[in-house]
């Protein structure tokens, strides 16, 4: 979206700025480790611009790679992207088809051009209920996972078709299945076990969610992970295709600033009066 900027060398300058910015942020040591993205507003954007819905979705895809580029550059380890909800199958067949096509061609693009995958060493991970995918898309998806499986620097989780409740249900079933097979005693079931068996099992805990287009709901995305205390949730008013590196940079800066101060100024625990008294007494005697 920066190419209407025609001043010679401006794109290099912009890139340079981005580079320096992300390096500075990274040195703060307070970058989120796992980001969740709900890319909302592609269709509304297309309607507003009077273009086909398909183009809205592909503009959204570009917007996603721009945002992710900055994130990975700044040191984010994992990004989980809500690409397709199980509920989305309710949309018109044509749109579901075009979304499927876009997803598989998008995945192919990422893998083959390899720009993002190579530059950042991104491992692509498809999470969700795969049994709902058409066969050709499934093949594409598996190929992408296979090609990128040795990349270790960053992870991109594509939720495709996914809902948070389904994830939790599958985790519960998997956990119980393990107790059946005597791998696990049911008295040892705790938060960590459920966490491990979620689709996002191997990833660090989610600490930032970004949702665009002014909707303030989670819409069945990462329910278990986001309800945890201390997770930062950002709802933005702009539509997803308009979401650029500038907004991303601002959010990352905000996050780093907040974490920096909550780390350097630990909350003073409220002193329980009784305890304080007994302590001072015991000192006297």
């Amino acid at each position: 979206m920066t190419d209407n900027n025609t001043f010679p060398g401006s794109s290099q300058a912009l890139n340079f700025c981005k580079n320096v910015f992300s390096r500075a942020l990274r040195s703060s040591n307070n970058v989120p480790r796992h980001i969740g993205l709900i890319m909302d507003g592609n269709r509304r954007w297309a309607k507003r611009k009077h273009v086909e819905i398909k183009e809205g979705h592909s503009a959204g895809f570009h917007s996603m790679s721009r945002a992710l580029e900055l994130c990975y550059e700044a040191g984010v380890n994992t990004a989980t992207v809500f690409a397709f909800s199980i509920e989305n199958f309710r949309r018109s067949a044509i749109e579901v088809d075009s979304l499927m096509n876009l997803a598989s061609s998008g995945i192919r693009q990422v893998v083959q051009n390899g720009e993002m995958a190579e530059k950042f060493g991104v491992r692509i991970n498809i999470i969700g209920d795969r049994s709902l995918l058409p066969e050709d898309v499934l093949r594409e998806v598996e190929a992408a996972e296979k090609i990128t499986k040795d990349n270790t620097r960053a992870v991109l989780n594509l939720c495709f078709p996914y809902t948070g409740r389904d994830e939790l249900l599958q985790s519960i079933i998997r956990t119980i299945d393990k107790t059946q097979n005597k791998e696990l005693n049911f008295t040892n079931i705790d938060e960590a076990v459920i966490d491990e068996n979620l689709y996002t099992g191997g990833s660090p805990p989610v600490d930032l969610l970004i949702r665009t287009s002014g909707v303030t709901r989670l819409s069945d995305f990462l329910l278990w992970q986001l309800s945890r205390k201390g997770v930062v949730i950002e709802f933005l008013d702009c539509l997803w295709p308009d979401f650029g590196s500038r907004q991303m940079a601002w959010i990352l800066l905000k996050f780093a600033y907040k974490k920096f101060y909550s780390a350097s100024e630990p909350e003073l625990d409220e002193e329980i009066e009784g305890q304080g008294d007994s302590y001072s007494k015991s000192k006297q005697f």
Partner: protein
Amino acid sequence: MTKIHSAVMKDHDGNWRKDQRDRQRVPAITNGRTNPAKPSINKVKNSIESMALSPPDSDVVKKKLEQNQMKGIWSQSGGNIEYLFCKVLLGVLFALYAGIRYVQYEFNRIKILVLNLAYNPSNSPQLIRQDVMKLEKLPRRLAAILEKKREGDVGGGVSGILNDGSELVAWSVSAGIKHLSLYDYDGHLKRNVDDFRDNVFHKLSKFYDPKNVPKFAVRIPQWNKVYFNSPGSEASESKKVLIEISLLSNRDGRETIIDLTKAMAELCAKNEMKLSDITMKLIDTELIQLVGHEPDLLLYFGPSLDLQGFPPWHIRLTELYWEQDNDQVTYSVFIRGLKKFADCKMNVGK
């Protein structure tokens, strides 16, 4: 499947006071005087100093910086200069951010102040009713996350959170909302349920005719208990209530889901249940029994949204509302939340 339910309830029952986990829990983050979002000049100074002077405390950062040194733009001048440059730049960025944030904060505070003046219920249900009448739809179930503030602050301590809760009850009754869930991380409300009922009764008798105070029920899903009206008056009253209040805490969130998983695993081990019996529907009905229904609107009265372990199964499509930089439980947030809910369009999957 009442077997599952009773198994989980057995787990919850009785020994909650002895529950070590309940005692060890850290106090909820207060948002009183030390609002971490509130910027100050001192912080900026601090940040620049520590950014520039303190060495990185993690090996990962060191390693990364060493890597950058190999291919960095400043590689000729060595890694130290580049590192220093990064730190200085970060300090500048933080300072810039703090400046912008300070303006934003003051702006938001003024906005909240004006809104609080504009929306003033002054203990009269008629005014609230008037505000609500303009709305197209009302949430059937409302939930709110409350926080205990510092003991010394205005509206702090346990009495503060009890007061906030009962105020919300009074507004909800006036607005005509039938189900209200109040969540606080540490469960202060449910531990002081008798005080809470007293508080609600007093608040309602300020709003309504003291001889004819609306009836209410307080439900504590964790202990499977329901209380009617204020302490001492439960027996004489009929069980028809105007509002049902559920008191929730962190215990009703993930831990309840874990208890449910344990109970089901035990039943599976005894062959009283098959793995294929576990469906979305089963878990949903069980969690509705154990915790309650999903709220339509969730209000949060803190400066920036933090779900604090609110039951995860129950926020699937819940509309979330909070006011940036606000830290008080005020009527203006309540009514603006209802307005936002009335305006929002729900289209699942589409």
